């Protein structure tokens, strides 16, 4: 029998978001896989250029519903670097605290999704039930379950009161018990281990070559974590371990994430014990001086990178977002090939994909000539004017801001 090429997605029951995977099969075995990104492009980067820095925070926060704090912190860090504003220590601690609470809910979410993808819906139900604890806590601290809006330019918007700190300790204690239970499931439950072991293998060399990041890289025994390598917020003074694993497969990624939860509790307890007194925000100028900055953040899914360029106005000239799923997309294609068709959903899910975070670019493709070409701004403008003229719309003679557009 010859090779069969099947498309998975953009609409497929195994995928939570629209994305296309082209799988070449030889029987049940995947011989080649290609990832086609680009179904979720929302033009957020361009929209950022038309809004002020303050408004951009809320837009950037909505890049992702799960790691919203990661994106907004990365953006704000870049803006604060350009404006040379140093945030108070208490603000840095609160940002770190919310970041870790977000990591907890993201990892619980992933554990449920991973269980669901392999038909272990009991795990899905119970881990999502426990996730509610941290979501309710975050709602109490920030005013919303997702899109917390705790960050502002120059600090944070809400303080943590002693009563809230006590509440956090209580919830963390309950979650720690649950996490120990899930660690037991991940390392002892035979059905789960047999399903995850040697599925979606990514060796250390391949992970380095393909630029894997976050838990995917750490599961391949690469000790890489922005919180340790390039500390931001309050991570420089908080003791914690970078969790790595040598399994280099889906089981390794599961163990890394569950063990990371235990580190989260350690970090949160340290923050609550050592929370400095003082202001929670400082003044931030409306107009950010000229300059550019590059900011890194360890999101639950891996390294999140933001680039901001300022031209001295109140709106940024350029905002570039590189979400962690983008870095892991190349590894997915590699991990899929050599495996079985039935493993495709869990291998994709194992990187904890967030495709709407990822889709930042569009590819211009000439479908008539079949070639990929990149059009610069004037060429794209000429092309659109020509296209409209050919289709019966003529803009010549119409003036916009005193300039002819046709």
């Amino acid at each position, binding site marked *: 029998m010859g090779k069969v090429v099947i498309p998975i997605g953009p609409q497929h029951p195994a995928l939570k978001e629209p994305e296309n995977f082209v799988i070449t099969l030889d029987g049940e075995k995947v011989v080649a896989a290609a990832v086609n990104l680009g179904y979720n492009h929302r033009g957020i980067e361009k929209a950022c250029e038309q*809004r*002020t820095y*303050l*408004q*951009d*925070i*809320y*837009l950037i926060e*909505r890049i992702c519903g799960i790691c919203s704090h990661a994106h907004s912190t990365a953006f704000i860090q870049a803006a604060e670097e350009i404006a040379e504003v140093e945030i108070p220590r208490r603000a840095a601690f609160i940002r770190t605290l919310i970041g870790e609470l977000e990591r907890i809910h993201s990892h619980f979410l992933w554990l449920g999704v991973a269980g669901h993808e392999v038909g272990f819906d*009991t*795990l899905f139900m*119970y881990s999502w*039930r426990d996730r*509610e604890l941290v979501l309710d806590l975050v*709602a*109490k601290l920030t*005013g*919303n379950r997702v*899109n917390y*809006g705790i960050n*502002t330019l120059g600090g944070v*918007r*809400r303080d943590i009161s002693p009563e809230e700190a006590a509440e956090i300790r209580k919830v963390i204690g309950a979650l720690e018990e649950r996490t120990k*239970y899930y660690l*037991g*499931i991940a390392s*002892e*439950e*035979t*059905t789960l*281990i047999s399903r995850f072991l040697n599925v979606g293998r990514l060796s250390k060399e391949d992970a380095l070559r393909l630029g894997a990041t976050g838990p995917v890289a750490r599961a391949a025994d690469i000790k890489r974590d922005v919180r340790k390598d390039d500390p931001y917020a309050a991570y420089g003074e908080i003791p914690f371990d970078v969790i790595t694993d040598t399994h280099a497969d889906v089981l390794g990624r599961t163990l890394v994430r569950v063990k990371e939860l235990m580190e989260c509790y350690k970090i949160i307890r340290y923050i609550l014990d050592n929370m400095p007194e003082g202001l929670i925000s400082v003044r931030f100028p409306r107009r950010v001086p000229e300059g550019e900055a590059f900011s890194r953040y360890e999101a639950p899914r891996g390294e999140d990178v933001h680039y901001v360029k300022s031209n001295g106005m109140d709106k940024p000239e350029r905002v570039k977002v590189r979400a962690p799923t983008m870095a892991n997309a190349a590894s997915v294609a590699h991990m899929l090939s050599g495996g079985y068709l039935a493993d495709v959903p869990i291998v994709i899910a194992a990187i904890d994909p967030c495709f709407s975070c990822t889709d930042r670019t569009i590819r211009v493709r000439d479908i008539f000539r079949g070639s990929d070409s990149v059009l610069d701004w004037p060429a794209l403008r000429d092309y659109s004017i020509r296209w409209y003229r050919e289709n019966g719309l003529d803009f010549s003679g119409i003036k916009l801001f005193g300039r002819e557009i046709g």
Partner: protein
Amino acid sequence: MKTGKMLPLALKGLFTKPATISYPYQKVVVPSDFRGKLVFDPSKCVGCMLCVRDCPSGAIEIIKVGEKKYKAVVHLDKCIYCGQCCDSCVRQALRTSPEFELAVYDRKDLTVDI
């Protein structure tokens, strides 16, 4: 290694109450400082328009109705419930309320005077 490690928990689940809340029959209690529908205090507003300038989605309008008298109109369909207007307000004329059940049948009803 053990098979069916989650089985005791799952069986116990058969005899416990559901973890979910049977909304809307049972009301959901949200924290008191939850970022829900905006509340406006016209006696405090000075018409500086800082809220209008900072709103990320252009959801709020401040309209002058008389000498030093203003009213606020909010487009609930545009509002993203970030609460930035309340932070921007220098006189604390705006604040968020825990009211979150804002669904209506007609889109026109989403533009409200607060």
